């Protein structure tokens, strides 16, 4: 697999799994207004995943859906941060805020890429992400000082570092205002990802080769 495809899959898998987790809040968020807003964020993440898979799919001679759904759990390249099942609001916002901050650094770098297609897609995603960041910052400011939120950020900080390549972590630490610690690196997948994958692919696997 080319380095380009690997990189694209890493990004796409992050966005797909995070989008899947975020979409779990549709219908059950703390307030109705927030439910609608957070669902848009989840949809954008899935949309970004789709665009990234489509680029990778052309390189790999397959389709976006096949990449999203037909690989085994071990083949995903997502970061442990997005795989964690955290269906409580403090941890969801902590993850959202940490991920958006990390992703901003990642997208800044991608927008400067020599690869015109990747740079172009990064720019488009970044324009949507502006609103994700505003939303995350708005919530982080509101929840700052709340013990549930602070504990969640403490817990997720090593995972957040693992989203980025090592050379970008110092910048993340500066933006988040925390000391860099040992990151929880990509590579190992948890049972949580396997459980997610089982549910995510159950309909698709039920009738192999079908069009849905």
């Amino acid at each position, binding site marked *: 697999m080319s380095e380009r495809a690997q990189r694209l899959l890493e990004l796409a898998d992050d966005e797909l799994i995070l989008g899947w987790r975020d979409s779990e809040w549709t219908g*059950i968020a703390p307030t*109705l207004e927030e439910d609608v807003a957070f*669902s848009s964020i989840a949809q954008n993440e899935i949309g970004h995943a789709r665009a990234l898979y489509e680029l990778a799919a052309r390189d790999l001679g397959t389709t976006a859906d096949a990449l999203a759904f037909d690989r085994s759990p071990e083949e995903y390249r997502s970061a442990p941060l997005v795989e964690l099942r955290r269906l409580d609001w403090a941890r969801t916002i902590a993850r959202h805020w940490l991920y958006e901050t990390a992703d901003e650094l990642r997208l800044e770098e991608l927008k400067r890429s020599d690869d015109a297609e990747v740079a172009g897609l990064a720019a488009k995603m970044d324009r949507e992400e502006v609103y994700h960041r505003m939303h995350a910052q708005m919530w982080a400011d509101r929840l700052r000082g709340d013990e549930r939120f602070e504990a969640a950020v403490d817990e997720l900080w090593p995972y957040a570092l693992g989203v980025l390549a090592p050379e970008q972590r110092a910048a993340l630490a500066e933006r988040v205002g925390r000391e860099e610690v040992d990151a929880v690196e990509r590579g190992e997948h948890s049972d949580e990802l396997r459980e997610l994958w089982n549910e995510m692919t159950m309909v698709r696997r039920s009738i192999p080769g079908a069009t*849905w």
Partner: protein
Amino acid sequence: MDARTQEFVEYVQGGGQVETGDWMPDEYRAKLIKFIEMHGNSELMGVLPEREWILRAPTLQRKLALTAKVQDEVGHSQLIYRVVEDLGKPRAACLQDLVDGKSKFHNVFHYPTKTWGDVGVIAWLVDAAAIISQKALLKCSYAPYARIMKKICWEESFHILHGRDVILTLMNGKDEQRALVQEALDRWWGPLMTFHGTAIAADEDPMVYWRIKSQGNEEARQQFLDGYVPQIWELGLTVPDTELRKNDDGVWEYSEPDWDELKRVVTGHGPMTAERLEFRRRLLEQEAWVRDVVLAEAA
């Protein structure tokens, strides 16, 4: 009936519109709140069977569409509860009464979903039945409700197309996929036939009397059958009612629906009622701190 109320009745029956700050008889306000609250409850409870399938959607496109559809329904509940709140019942009270089993929501949302076939049938037929009811509210005498119905009906238009798309894709697919649709239809037909309620004569229907809705229950059901039975039959699907037919007067005849079941279900004894209300209650309690922290007025 006192003179002021009589005058009000004549006003709304003549097409008059009522705004939030206007005087209205207590009975009108009470009936409005109950009716509109039930609508809000239904949108919110309808989300629960559907959201499971967001997580299981078999393509990225379907995942996006289903998330957007359910998002719209949550958005509708937001619009609806705002109307109820401006009429005098706060949202928190509505949500509490819902999880305590003190208020109602439509029958269809008390039933389980079992397969991707349900996803198609719900978006195609259950939503169609709901849209017919919703269109009958566009001329509601209470103007704030009529206005939100306009946005709601506009957003529902994509839901119908999404539903049709899911169904047609399944019907054009493998035999097992076609079977999914038929099996789901067989289960949903009963609830669909009782969805619009028992046939109450227009002049005995308080909702029509106060011009809250402009269509009687049987008229709505006939409209549903007229629009959708041909769509069902043209795909080679069958309806589990051997007596269903359109007679020479253009009226659809059908087996008597199970009205006892409807009553049992809407009074809180549906197959999924307790489980779903418990789920909502648990999340409401779990995330109460967020509302207390975030919604507290800024210092």
